[in-house]
Structures are given as structure tokens and as C-alpha cells.
């Protein structure tokens, strides 16, 4: 147990270290911006005096170290300032967009894991058959096709040609529910979710399926299955027992997958006009709305780091040998 505690502490320290490093890189990047971050506010009619006042107001003429300390403090307390354009607190914008992104990712991951597990356990059990080989190659090929092109094709076929699904967006225009919960529980939302979710799944189903297939192969050879067989259990029940044991490595895989998707879905959000955090980042960069861009980047990085941390922790609990090494 002592070892486990030490391991967790080390992981936590690493999380803090990496977060601070990423924040510092972000700070340097925005300091290197050519011109003035306030150029959005300042036009050529401003007098020298007015420009100086603006700089003072935003703390831009303070010494660099003070700016750095203030920046770090603000970021770590999730105080992201005010959007240059929407004139609302950036935190509110980012939280809303994150929820939207989550509303697309979570269902896709859950469905991918459930279906991928079933598929993988079937593949592992049918090892060596012709279907198994074909399905594995198909899965791998599908994963290597860029998902944004899959998204475009799916939109062209199911939305523009067949008209079965809406051509993007999260809800119909004017169809916003009163609350986030009200929105995601509406049928209208589900209707908009189908296509992006499907595209995400074509990609995300591969990893649980292949992982489960290979762990199934290992588990399949273990002695406890022979005992179950000797007890006279039907083959179907034995597959269930084997699957349950093969599920363990999947737990960490899902955590990593979730973290990765929070940055990887940028392209899909653009294609499906999904108002998530990735699309917000692109919009903010195009508008030179730096506070929003900064915050979007930070929360995406933070989410990835958190999920990786969770994966490490879960792994240590599942397989205590990890903490020992």
C-alpha cells in the first residue's frame, strides 16, 4: 500500500509539473505574438496617450515576471478574463462549449466501448477464421481513413442526398431547450447527434475491439477456463467469464481515448457545425479573440492530462505490479 501511495504522489507531482510547463509554453507563445494583443481595440485614431492608458488598463506595461505570475494564477484559478468580442466572461463560454463537446464524445465513446467489446470478444474467440481476418483488416483500414473525410462522405450521403439527417448543428434553429440537460434529453438533439456519433465510432471502435481480441487470446489459454469447462458450463457462459477478465486493460484505454478525443474532434466539430470547444478555438483564432483561444487551448490540454492521470491511477489499482516498478 505504501508503494501505491508513493506512486500516486509521483503521478500527481508529474501532473502538476506538466500542467505548469504547458501553461508556460502558452504564455511564451502569446508573448511572441507579432504586434499588440490589443490591436483589436486600438485603431489608428487612438492617440499615444490613449494607447498607453489601454496598456495600463490591461496590465501590459507591468514587468514581465509580474505578468507571468498573474497569468499563472488566473489560469490555475480558471479566471480567463473577458472575451474581446462576446464581452462575456471567457469561463462561461468555455464551460458551455466543453459541455457541448462532451455531449458528442461521451455517447460515442460509450457506444464504441460496448460494441467494440462485443466485437472484440467475438473476434478473439473466432481466432483464425476467415471472417476474423477480414474484420480485423477492415477495422484497421477504417481507422486509417481520415475521419474528417468520412464525416464529409457521411454528410453528403445521409444528409444532402438522402435527407435522413440534418446537415450539422447540435439542435434545430430556435430549438434550444431551457437548460443543457433539457437540450441533450430532447429528441431533436439525438437526431443531430446520430451522424457525428457514427463517424466517431467508426474510428473509436477499433481500439477496444482489437484490445479485447488480443487479451481474449491470452485469457483463452488460462487454466481457470478449463476448470469452468470441467464444471460443464456451456460455451456461451465461458465466453462471458473470459470477457470479464479481458476487460481490465480496457479501463485505462477508455480514459486515454476520452482525453484524446477532446482535442481530436476539432475537425468533426467544424464539419458538423457542432458548437464545441474545438470549433470555438478555431473561431477565436480567426477573430483574434485571444483570451478565448488561450482558455480553449488550456482546458483541452488540461483534460488530456487529467484523463491520462486517471488512466495511470486506475491502472495501478487494477494491476498493483505497476506501482512497484
Amino acid at each position, binding site marked *: 500500500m505504501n508503494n501505491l501511495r508513493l506512486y500516486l504522489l509521483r503521478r500527481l507531482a*508529474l501532473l502538476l*509539473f*506538466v*500542467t505548469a*510547463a*504547458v501553461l508556460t*509554453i*502558452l504564455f511564451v*507563445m*502569446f508573448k*511572441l*505574438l*507579432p504586434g499588440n494583443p490589443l490591436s483589436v481595440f486600438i485603431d489608428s485614431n487612438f492617440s499615444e496617450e490613449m494607447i498607453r492608458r489601454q496598456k495600463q488598463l490591461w496590465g501590459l506595461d507591468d514587468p514581465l515576471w509580474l505578468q507571468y505570475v498573474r497569468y499563472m494564477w488566473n489560469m490555475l484559478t480558471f479566471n480567463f478574463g473577458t472575451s474581446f468580442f462576446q464581452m462575456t466572461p471567457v469561463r462561461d463560454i468555455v464551460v458551455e462549449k466543453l459541455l457541448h463537446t462532451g455531449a458528442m464524445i461521451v455517447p460515442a465513446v460509450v457506444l464504441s466501448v460496448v460494441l467494440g467489446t462485443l466485437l472484440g470478444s467475438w473476434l478473439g474467440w473466432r481466432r483464425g477464421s476467415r471472417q476474423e481476418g477480414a474484420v480485423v*483488416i477492415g477495422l*484497421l*483500414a477504417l481507422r*486509417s*481513413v*481520415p475521419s*474528417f*473525410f468520412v464525416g*464529409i*462522405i457521411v*454528410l*453528403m450521403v445521409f444528409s*444532402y442526398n438522402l435527407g435522413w439527417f440534418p446537415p450539422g448543428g447540435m439542435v434545430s434553429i430556435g430549438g434550444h431547450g431551457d437548460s443543457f440537460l433539457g437540450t441533450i434529453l430532447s429528441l431533436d438533439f439525438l437526431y443531430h447527434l446520430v451522424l457525428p456519433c457514427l463517424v466517431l465510432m467508426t474510428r473509436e471502435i477499433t481500439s477496444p475491439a482489437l484490445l479485447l481480441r*488480443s487479451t481474449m*487470446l491470452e485469457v483463452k489459454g488460462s487454466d481457470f477456463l478449463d476448470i469452468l469447462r470441467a464444471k460443464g458450463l456451456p460455451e456461451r457462459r465461458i465466453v462471458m467469464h473470459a470477457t470479464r477478465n479481458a476487460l481490465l486493460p480496457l479501463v485505462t484505454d477508455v480514459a486515454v481515448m476520452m482525453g484524446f478525443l*477532446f*482535442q*481530436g474532434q*476539432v*475537425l468533426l466539430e*467544424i*464539419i458538423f457545425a457542432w458548437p464545441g470547444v*474545438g470549433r470555438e*478555438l*478555431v473561431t477565436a*483564432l*480567426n477573430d483574434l479573440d485571444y483570451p478565448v*483561444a488561450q482558455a*480553449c*487551448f488550456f482546458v*483541452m*490540454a488540461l483534460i*488530456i*492530462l487529467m484523463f*491520462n492521470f486517471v488512466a495511470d491511477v486506475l491502472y495501478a489499482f487494477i494491476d498493483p505490479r505497476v506501482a512497484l516498478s
Partner: protein
Amino acid sequence: MTPAHTVAERGGTGRRGVLGTIGHTLRVIMRYPTGAFGLFLLALVVIVALIGPLISPYGPFDVVQTAQGRIARLVPPSSVALLGTTNQGNDVLSQLLYGTRVALMVGVISAIGSVVLGTLIGLVSGYFGGKVDEAIMRFTDVAFGIPFLPFALIVISVAGPSLPLVILLVTLFLWRTTSRVIRAQVLTLKTRPFVWAARAAGASEWRILFVHIAPNVLPLSFLYMAIGVQGGVMLEAALSFLGFGDPNVVSWGSMLNQSFRAGAMRSAWWWVIPPGVALSLFVISVFMVTRAYEELLNPRLRET
């Protein structure tokens, strides 16, 4: 992942020579149907990348005109433009052919750069261990903590879009995995008897690292280079699709970006499908070749 046998145990690559090794590798890859198919597609892409500008009917930004002298906007595939035209009257086929060169260039350069970087870092980190290893691994952790696409978008909007910058960013993204894999490989290699033997014979640390250990990780480096080509092409396409690519160059990603913005998904399929299919075929072909190569490196894959 461990190679089945090290170069040292096989008696060194020297006996076969570099060209012989490459020839042997290609022959083994050809033995897999998927590997052969992948190699064929890949060869096609390389040829098109080399001679594309020679065989393309127009320049990438040339405006095609109809027989009546009007600008041929959004013309479906016909004898004038085999794959149709864009809303600016550019020939889709010509853009596709020119784009092949850009895709391959970004992929190959960033793959080579990232593998050289990743292999060197992995070798030093794994072999010397201790404080050096600790420092390098924490640095790698930070690099892994940065979400690539958002990071690249910010850097490009700060520095302005250009092809060399895209290549640099992709390189900075790809080295991380390579260095971790190479490091793990070096950790097992440095406990092998041939390393003790070299040390007993009085070889210096750097000599052991580069003469005795490095050749044994090279096959793995090549694997990651191939995977890197695939990653590089995809990332360039992704950045260009988001509108952060070099505006003076036509690439598959920028074609998709233009057609997406112009709403060609609704009206002009011939402008959307070719770049997407080219991109997908290229990525799949690299995938098939690397998979065959991976099985060559790791025979255990064949059994499981």
C-alpha cells in the same frame, strides 16, 4: 514490441549491404497480398508526385475557359476538365496532381526529421539512464501533454501559415512516440551479452551506443518513419482543411477546405471526392506496407 532477432545475432547487416537489405525487405513485404497492394499504390503516388506537374493538363491556379470563352466554373467532369472544375474555374485534376507532391513532401520530410530526432533522444535516454534519462523523459511528458492540433493552430496563427512551419510542427509532434519506443528497446538491448563484450573489449560508451546498439534499433526506427509519413500527410491535410495551411500551395487538405467552404458537398461532388479519396488511398497504402513490415520485424504478430 521486440524484434525477433537482433542484427548482431544475425551476423550484421554488413553481409547483405544496405541495398540488399532494402531489396530483401521489399520482397518480404510483397509476400503479403496487402503489403504488395500497398507497395503498388505507394509507388503510384511517388510517381505522380515526381511527374505530376508534367502530366497535369493545367497549372493548379489556371482558370479553365469554356469554348465560348467564359470561365468554366463548377463544370462537371468532361473532356475539357477530366475531374471537373472548382468555383474559381480551376481544374480539379491538376490541383490533385500538384497536391500529391505537397503531401508526399510534408510526409517524408517530417517523418525523416522526427525519426532522426526521436531515435537520437531515445538512444541517449535509454542508454545513459539516470539523471539524463529522467530529464529527457520529463521533457517528453511535457511534449505529450500538449494537444497537437490546438497547439499547431495557435502557432500558425501567431507566426503566419507556411509550408516549412507545417513541416516543423508535424516533426515536433511525431518524435515523441518514436523516442519512447526506441528508449524501451535500448533498455533491453543494453543488458545483452554483446554489449558487455564490447565494453570488455574497451569500446567507449558512445561507440557502444552508435556502433553496437543503434544498428539494432534501426529496423524499429524505419517502422516509425513509415508510420510518420502517414501521420505527417494526415496532419498536413487536417491543418490545411481547417484553413491553416500555406495559402500559396495546393494540397489535398486545402482542396477539401475550399470545396467545404464553397458548399461543394451539396453541389459539386467531383471537387470533394478526389482529394479525399487520394488522401485515404495514400494513408491506407502506407498502413498496409507498415503492417507487413511490422510482421516481418515481430513474428509474434503472425501467431497472435
